[in-house]
């Protein structure tokens, strides 16, 4: 009973905190640009509004257009349950849950992609093609990162993998994962979340024809995903396993802030890359993870 309650509490925490991150990022961007910018809680307002809005469906779409986002949202939420928080560990922890984590995110991608293709629009097709193609490289990077942690800790369970710090290779790993984070969440320099030219979009163009509650699910899922990556990045680098719950949460929140600010800074300082250059950057982050792996292999002891 208590465990069930605990799980529900954790889940609630994840879901509630998630929309905060984009707000922070936007705030940082506005601040850098010298504007006041939207309130930090803007996304909450948007979600609430969307949830009550009516829906306009394309004449071409099938039920998948609506079902897809729901499935994706569930998958991401499920992934959240696998991510340990400090000492208490995750709600679900077992050997190999790291892989489940990765594949749940992949499942989410699959659903969103099909929902997007459902409209039969060339724009969505374009976006999906880009999304799934870049995901290939991102996937390689994440698997490499997991391998690094596995070599580091000698286990295959996130709870224990993330407990110790990545040691010598931590900086490399952090850089690599940060690149993956930007790519997977479609931030600059891979994608510009608030561009207005369909031809240059990746993620935005996929949700072009969504509206109302489905769009809300997609947006919330995206923010949750961002949060997941931020936490994963933090725990991979910092030895949170040794802290007790509250300090751990504190550190987590703080570092999530830091990540958000970093993203914001990157977005305001860098420009979007040309599409042909994107694979290059992703390969770079993959290589960073690979080097981290090598460092761990040489330095770490089983």
């Amino acid at each position, binding site marked *: 009973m208590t465990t069930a309650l605990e799980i529900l509490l954790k889940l609630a925490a994840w879901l509630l905190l998630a929309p905060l991150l984009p707000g922070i990022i936007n705030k940082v961007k506005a601040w850098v640009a010298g504007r006041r910018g939207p309130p930090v809680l803007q996304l909450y307002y948007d979600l609430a509004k969307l949830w009550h809005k*009516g*829906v*306009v*469906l*394309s*004449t*071409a779409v*099938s*039920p*998948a257009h609506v*079902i897809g986002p*729901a*499935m994706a949202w*569930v*998958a991401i939420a*499920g992934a959240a349950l696998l991510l340990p928080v400090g000492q208490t560990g995750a709600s*679900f922890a*077992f*050997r*190999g849950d790291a*892989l*489940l984590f990765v*594949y*749940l995110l*992949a499942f989410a991608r*699959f659903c969103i*992609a*099909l929902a997007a*293709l*459902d*409209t*039969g*629009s*060339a*724009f969505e*097709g*374009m976006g*999906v*093609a880009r999304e*799934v*193609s870049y995901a*290939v490289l991102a*996937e*390689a990077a*994440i*698997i*490499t990162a997991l*391998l690094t942690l*596995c*070599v580091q*800790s000698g*286990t*295959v369970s996130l709870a224990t993998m993330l407990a110790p710090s990545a040691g010598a290779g931590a900086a490399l790993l952090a850089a690599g994962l940060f690149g993956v984070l930007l790519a997977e969440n479609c931030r600059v320099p891979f994608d510009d979340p608030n561009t207005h030219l*369909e031809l240059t979009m990746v993620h935005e163009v996929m949700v072009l*024809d969504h509206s*109302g*509650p*489905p769009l809300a699910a997609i947006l919330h899922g995206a923010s949750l995903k961002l949060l997941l990556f931020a936490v994963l990045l933090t725990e991979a680098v910092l030895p949170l396993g040794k802290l007790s719950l509250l300090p751990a949460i504190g550190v987590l929140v703080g570092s999530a802030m830091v990540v958000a600010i970093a993203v914001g800074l990157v977005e305001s300082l860098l420009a979007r890359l040309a599409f042909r250059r994107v694979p290059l950057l992703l390969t770079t982050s993959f290589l960073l993870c690979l080097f981290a*792996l090598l460092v761990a292999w040489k330095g770490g002891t*089983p």
Partner: protein
Amino acid sequence: MTPGWLLLLAGAGLAAGIFSAFKSPRLWLVTTLIGAGAAFAAAVLMLASGVTWDWRPGFVIGGEALHLQLDGLSAFFLVLLSVLGGAGTLYSSEYWSDKAHPDSAPAGRAWWNALLLNMGCVLLCANGLHFLIVWEIFTVCAYFLITRERQRPATRAAGWLYLASSHVAMIFLFAFFALLAARTGSWELGPMRGHPELAPLFWLALIGFGLKAGIFPMHIWLPSAHANAPSHVSAILSGMAIKMGIYGLVRFTGWLPVPPSAGWVVAALGVTSAVLGVAFALGQHDLKRLLAYHSVENIGIILIGLGFAMIAVSHGNAAWGQLALAGGLLHVWNHGLFKALLFLGAGSVLHATGTREMSRLGGLWRAMPWTASLFALGATAIAGLPPLNGFVSEWLVYLGLFDAVSGRGHAAIAAIVAAMALGVTGALALACFVKVCGVVFLGLPRHEIAPHVHECGWRMRLPMLVIGVACVVIGLAPILFWPALATAAAAWQPELANSIPPAPLVTLGAFHLALAALVILAAAFLWRRVRRNGLSRAGTWDCGYAAPTARMQYTAGSFAGIITGWFDWILRPQRHEQPPGGNFPARAGFEEHTPETVLEKIIEPAGSLVLRLSLAVRHLQHGRVQSYIFYLLLGLAALAILAVMGGAK
């Protein structure tokens, strides 16, 4: 009923099917289904009891006493065979009906039963000679099934390519079994790890069985054969026939000693097949050809599992070998199931629209919702996504690899490479099946396909449904199937057997269950929410363009463009571009075709070289009798030299 009687019943049913195939299709259907059911029962019985069924009747065939044996491994494969066989039987009764194919259907039914029967016999034979015989017969049966539509030159070419490469495999198996018999002095098969001198034979087996399994450089026959065969045949070919190659490898790596490098080679081949197979698949525009290349990919995944299991054995039974093997074996089942599902789905698309060309299809979900949703299910499974079966087996393989890594043993580095390859393969497969589902079933029809597009009848739908359910069940309750895996593993390597399922598998199953439930709930909830908020219809956002047409949708080629670009070095796609020009561009065109590189760049040149040689030789037979007598003299001289040479020795 003991397995023996059930198997007898199965054989009788299939044989009866062969004879009733021409006269009465209904009788054929019944007898064949009974046969498949009996085989299924026998296999399950054996797997449940774990008792090997061993039968040595007196009578002699071809100079060797008959010896049949149903042990864990053969039972494991027999399950798959009987399920796919039964499903395909029912499916074909509508798909390849007498009405549609009056002259090829009856013989097709007979060949179908012969194929099932002989594949079953291959699984049962414990005598090298008989193994060889039924193996070749099943190969030939498959040829006649592939060339059902032999009026089409493409089919004939595909069929001949299949026949030729199968015969290459056959020649290697000839050598393999003959050497085995020559060295051991008997045709009896069985565990003989005590004879290290037999280890080199593994290489013969690898080529012989690898050709059948379609491992990467040896896969040349696979795409065209699978694409041109009737779909239920493609399903059994891809689901079962290529697994026979895997069966051979597993069986003989279990019975015979292998050279130390064997495991590494198998794993390396697996990695190559997995990555390149899916890369080639991405380049295809022909639905069934694409699926065929995915068979290469999945065979690769299976081999990664098997290879690491072999490495584990050769390094003293590391625990992770067990997981890798379990993953590989389970993937045999899984790939058999979802690939059959996908081929049957492709079959009903072909049946309805008459084309395999994806760029002509689109928006089929309206006309054929059942096919569309089942195909989507299969796609999710083959992309290795939770909560379906594809993920379970890949996850087991992953687990084995990660354990190998964390163990920091000899295999760690190799495991790292394999794990990365597996990850990339998964992502590529996902991309590929997003493309397939999106282009074929979603969006709008790209061409005015014949108006008679219709959902397939229940006899085609039911088999797909059954297989789909099987995929889901394996995904949600993998724990149920662990005993089967353990029994099979025990038959392969007693040391690797472990009847206690790994704890994580239980948790994974629970998680999958929860996930599936929540996914459905959420979907329903959101759908209701949308309804409540009220929904209105409008055209897809066209960015203000006045006259959007269905042909402006993203096509298969353009979708995969980015990734195929990365693999240009091996895919060698041929592009014919006709860019729009001038102020008022007339018609522009762009077409792309990905050839079978290994075949067209390596095999065919070599073949033409041999043909040129034979042409040169044939010129000697130019019809002038004087020179014929001269050849005679030459022969005489050669003989004399040979003979005298010996005299000198």
